[in-house]
């Protein structure tokens, strides 16, 4: 065995466990799932037995379901608002914690911690805040008494309930995205700022003309991450609103804050229609790929080559 062969053997030896795990939990289920979406798979069909091929019937039914169309629209709105809010907040926070602030490392840690809490826990926690804590504040502080009005409960109306998911999603995720911005901002060469200072640039000009273009690579990553996680939002949605409150869409009563991932879950497991759920998941996947490819392409164009 020569040197090259030995290296190559070690390379594959270390790579194999990862490849096997990746194939078993991602690649194989993906293709099996895509196949199931074309069948009449229901809950009690044992895998590989008694399946009938039904072509694109599940997809056709999916596009006729008001619940799915509604979830799609709501999820898109949610994603746009959430991506914008997370990124604006994350940049603001990262600028704060990279400035000459005392205790900035403590702040960094503090902003990051929500990311370490699971979405379900966060959902129940914030449900308590929105339903109980906010009311108590309204009841005990005079000029905030409007908060105690049951008509104004954040989780009691569809638009505000979706906004409540945005609030929790942002609170959870902004610290994580902040860390990516922090790393990028700290990588900007100091001499650029020095030169601009000599030229008499204002803080805003420095941010606009130096920081933003220099951290364009970070934007590609953060936009991608926030886009994908917002689109896939499930746990906070499930624990915080369970899809409620209800509304009517295309003449059908449906749950108004049910995002796409939860709609797929309900179709598959409450409706026992696993094949239809699978078809929705395939559509979901395709849409997500298209969105993120477009986003990455646009962002890539704005990156600078150093």
């Amino acid at each position, binding site marked *: 065995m020569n040197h090259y062969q030995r290296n190559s053997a070690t390379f594959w030896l270390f790579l194999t466990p990862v490849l096997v795990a990746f194939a078993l939990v991602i690649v194989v289920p993906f293709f099996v799932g895509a196949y199931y979406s074309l069948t009449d798979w229901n809950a009690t069909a*044992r895998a590989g037995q008694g399946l009938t091929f039904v072509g694109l019937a599940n997809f056709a039914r999916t596009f006729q379901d008001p619940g799915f169309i509604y979830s799609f629209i709501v999820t898109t709105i949610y994603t746009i608002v959430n991506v914008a809010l997370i990124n604006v907040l994350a940049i603001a926070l990262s600028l704060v914690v990279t400035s000459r602030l005392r205790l900035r490392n403590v702040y960094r840690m503090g902003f990051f911690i929500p990311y370490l809490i699971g979405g379900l826990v966060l959902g129940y926690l914030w449900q308590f805040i929105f*339903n109980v804590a906010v*009311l108590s504040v309204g009841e005990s502080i005079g000029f905030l008494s409007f908060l105690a009005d049951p008509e104004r409960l954040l989780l*009691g109306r569809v638009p505000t309930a979706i906004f409540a998911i945005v609030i929790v999603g942002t609170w959870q995720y902004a610290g994580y995205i902040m860390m990516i911005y922090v790393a990028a901002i700290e990588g900007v060469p100091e001499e650029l700022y020095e030169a601009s200072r000599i030229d008499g640039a204002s803080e805003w000009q420095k941010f606009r003309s130096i920081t933003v273009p220099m951290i364009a690579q970070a934007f590609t990553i953060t936009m991608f991450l926030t886009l994908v996680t917002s689109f896939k939002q499930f746990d906070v949605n499930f624990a915080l609103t369970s899809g409620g*409150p209800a509304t009517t869409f295309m003449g059908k*009563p449906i749950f108004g804050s049910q995002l796409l991932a939860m709609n797929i879950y309900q179709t598959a497991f409450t409706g*026992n*229609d696993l094949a239809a759920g699978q078809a929705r998941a395939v559509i979901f996947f395709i849409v997500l790929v298209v969105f993120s490819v477009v986003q990455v392409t646009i962002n890539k164009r704005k990156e600078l080559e150093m």
Partner: protein
Amino acid sequence: MKRLIVFVLVLAVFAGTAFASGAPEGGGITLMQNKPEIDAMLQEYGAIWSESSGVDITIKSVGGGSGADMGQQLRADYAAGEMPDIFTIDGIESYKEWESLILDLSDEPWVDETAVAFTVDGKVYGMPVAVEGWGMAYNADVLKAAGVDPASLVNYDAYVDAFAKIDAMKGQLGLDSVVSMAASAEMGWVTAHHNFNSLLSAGLPYGDLSVVNDLLAGNVDQRRLSEYADWVELLFTYADPTVLTTGNYDAQVGAFATGKAAFLHQGNWTDPNMAAANAGFDMAFAPHGALHSDTDGIFVAAPSFYVINAESDNIAAAKQYLRDLVETEAGQNYMVNEAGMIPAFANVSLNPAGQLSRSVQEWAAQGKVYSWSQYYFSGEFRDGTLAPIYNQFATGQIDKARFMALLTEAFGSL
């Protein structure tokens, strides 16, 4: 390189032994049930039973709240070829799902001891886990102070008067609202399962499916529906709007347990919550006022049934386990004293400790019971179609006429 090979070999040996020791041993039985709150007691009883019978038993508890439910776990286990020997079903819908592998238990000795076994076409397939019931749980102390006789609460008009009377005295009685009702998305089971059942079975003989069959066929009796809609509206009107529209189980039960509401729209499973909240008042169940005519009874049935997997290798042991649960002292003690359940068998003479459970037992003993018929409608229909309709009514987005129209339309689409 040599070292690396040795390392890999050692790893392989370790992995081999680890997997080998993790393999299941033959001879035992597996039971899967859907009440995590009694898991600890059941595990304890399982250990006692194992010792006396010499058969290993593995107990898996899945479900509760809005998390994973047992149906999903069963489907996964079935697909993996690891179906438990004994599992629970909740009614006709889940029976149909597993019909092909549920064993006929008609010849078991406990069949003669119970009136609520799960039967299809005269054959017994499921052994009742317990008896449960719901109605309008009331705070007897509050009703007494307000001068309302719980025995009079048998129809809609009686409730209209009682609610109005108590509502006027709310401040004096220390109440936030008259009735603790929940209709948020995650509490769809209170509205679209339990309350919905009033429409299906209130006032009818036990097991009468005439209304169910009419609705399934799309024939809606508008008069009955209108009376029922009045009842729903009455409950929503006198409920605390915060609890009603966004509250969860804790908020709903907590309001009653802490004396902030005079009535609670829940069942006897709230007994442990009452104990945990140190609710120090007398409580019992009153019938629903779902109709204008008298409906003097509460909704009582077995919520779930043990069934035996016909493909199991240990059918005899599984049957023995179920027999012992009813016939042995340890089994009865577990059911009533440890798990706090209302026994579904005549040969069990123990009484549960909870006030609401005892109330259910009293109603059942008098034979004033109505059936649970909501299971004749699929889970998808109740959770996906009915629950949003109730929720819109509760949040005031639709009025009674629209509520009735939406329900009629929903039944028409079945």
